């Protein structure tokens, strides 16, 4: 069991990441593995343009996740209240951004918001909107799964005690859904942090997220700088996910 796990896990998942980690500290790469040691790439990767890009990515991911979480949760709650047939329609609608290639979503967003009165092309908002559209599907799916699992007896007990539907939602259903909501937020954040293809079509010069910078660096042959940037992206994402998971453990009651 463990042997199979390691045989699959190490070459497929761990090695590439370790090579990137190694490359980010290297000065040259002539044999199988990168060699030499320097922290110089990190100096470049944590200041100026790179730092700006990291902030851009974080702000974009946080905003897009919050929008996606609000929209996805709202839609999932609405779907749960609707009949079976309408729920199927909503489910299908929210799968669309996942099913359609993200390049297409990027292009669609570009076309949709390039004409007045919705002229957002060239602003940061178009990037955030595209990310939100892409990750809302995941928020919707994980929240709707959690709603289906939630025992209706809680909401019914609350209603029988005289609580209006809004009060039940606020005091009973959302608190009980909180672990799933934070999990969904974490997922959305991670996806948005790594989004490249739709972003490429939309980003204005003053709003360059980190993945775009990594792509640009490797594209012009600066592989080590790109690796350092990738490690920074990975570390930042993991740190935020860790923080989110701390909230989740405090909010789980059973």
């Amino acid at each position: 069991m463990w042997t199979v796990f390691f045989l699959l896990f190490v070459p497929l998942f761990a090695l590439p990441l370790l090579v990137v980690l190694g490359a980010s500290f290297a000065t040259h790469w002539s044999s199988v593995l990168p060699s030499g040691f320097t922290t110089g790439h990190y100096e470049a990767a944590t200041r100026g343009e790179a730092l700006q890009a990291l902030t851009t990515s974080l702000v974009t991911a946080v905003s897009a996740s919050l929008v996606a979480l609000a929209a996805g949760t709202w839609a999932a709650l609405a779907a749960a209240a609707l009949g079976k047939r309408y729920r199927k329609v909503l489910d299908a609608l929210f799968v669309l951004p996942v099913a359609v290639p993200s390049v297409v979503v990027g292009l669609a967003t570009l076309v949709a918001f390039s004409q007045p009165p919705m002229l957002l092309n060239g602003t940061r908002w178009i990037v955030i909107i595209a990310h939100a559209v892409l990750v809302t599907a995941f928020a919707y799916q994980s929240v709707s799964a959690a709603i289906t699992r939630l025992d209706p007896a809680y909401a019914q007990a609350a209603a029988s005690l005289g609580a209006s539907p809004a009060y039940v939602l606020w005091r009973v259903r959302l608190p009980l859904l909180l672990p799933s909501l934070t999990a969904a937020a974490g997922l959305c954040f991670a996806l948005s942090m790594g989004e490249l293809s739709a972003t490429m079509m939309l980003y204005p010069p003053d709003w360059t997220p980190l993945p775009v910078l990594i792509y640009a660096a490797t594209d012009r042959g600066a592989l080590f700088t790109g690796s350092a940037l990738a490690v920074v992206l990975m570390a930042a994402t993991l740190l935020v996910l860790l923080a989110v998971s701390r909230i989740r453990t405090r909010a789980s009651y059973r």
Partner: protein
Amino acid sequence: MSTTSSGIRFDSVTVAYDGNVVLDALDLTVGPGEVMALLGPSGSGKTTALRAVAGFVRPASGRVFLGDRDVTDLPPHRRGIGMVVQQYALFPHMRVEDNVAFGLKARKVAKAEIRTRVLEALEMTGMGAYARRHPRELSGGQQQRVAIARALAIRPDVLLLDEPLSALDAQLRSGMLAELARLHRELPDVSILYVTHDQVEALTLADRIAVMDRAKLRACGTPRELYRAPADAFTASFVGGANLLPVTVGDRGVSFGDAEIEVDTGGVARGASATLCVRPHLVGLGDGPNRLTGTVGEIQWRGATHRLYVDVAGHRVMADLRELKAPPAHGESVSLHFAPEDAVLLPAGVGGG
């Protein structure tokens, strides 16, 4: 009369899911302060009836009244009922005191008032010492007490109990049964609708029992009426065990196989076939009036009693006898008897079991 503010009335309530009738034209009145048990097997419509009162299912036709108020079109939170369900449904993210205060907060009761009423409800159910705990830190019986306290804190006129004891083990169950009886003595004005499949719970607690089967009300009466003089075979077998013997009505009694049995034939016509109902614990061993002879098919020792299954004229007759010093052997021929007044003649064809 001022008593019309409480009580429950079903006026020909029919409930259907996707064209499937699960409750068929139920007419039933629960008086103010009365405990009514809805007794029946699963799928008999008893829980649906309770949910129609709570407002979680909408009747396809008919009206539901609480007191003189027609609540058929009211959403659950406007009905002012207390409800306790089998799996407790305590809010896991709130402490016991917040669970009990929930209904009062939702109704915007003043803070000081909430505190006294939460304490009162917790004291009444013996859970005063657990106010600061979370539900997950309580045992099943304690959680059920909190659920009852939560329902009572809003001081409802009507309390709905949906199989409240079936998640508890046997010993706890009899303890909680006594608790519920005590609570009802302390709150004599609260009408209680108690859904259960357990005849002991129904016989112990209820002022009246409504027996349900296959979406229909089969019988309704005091526990004594239903037990001593059931109206049909289904009621007889569901409320306590019963021997149901196919008999033919004669002049002064009935005949079962070769045996002539003396019994009050009531208004049943001579020559008609009917069902004779005799409770197992009223059947005696040995000679006596209304003697039946047969062979012992099975014998079970239950500690305080022996249960004999005796094959008489192709039918199994059960007899619960006080522990026998010398129980008959398997296959032995024995005589059974019962007093004429302990048997009830049911018109045949009704129910069918």
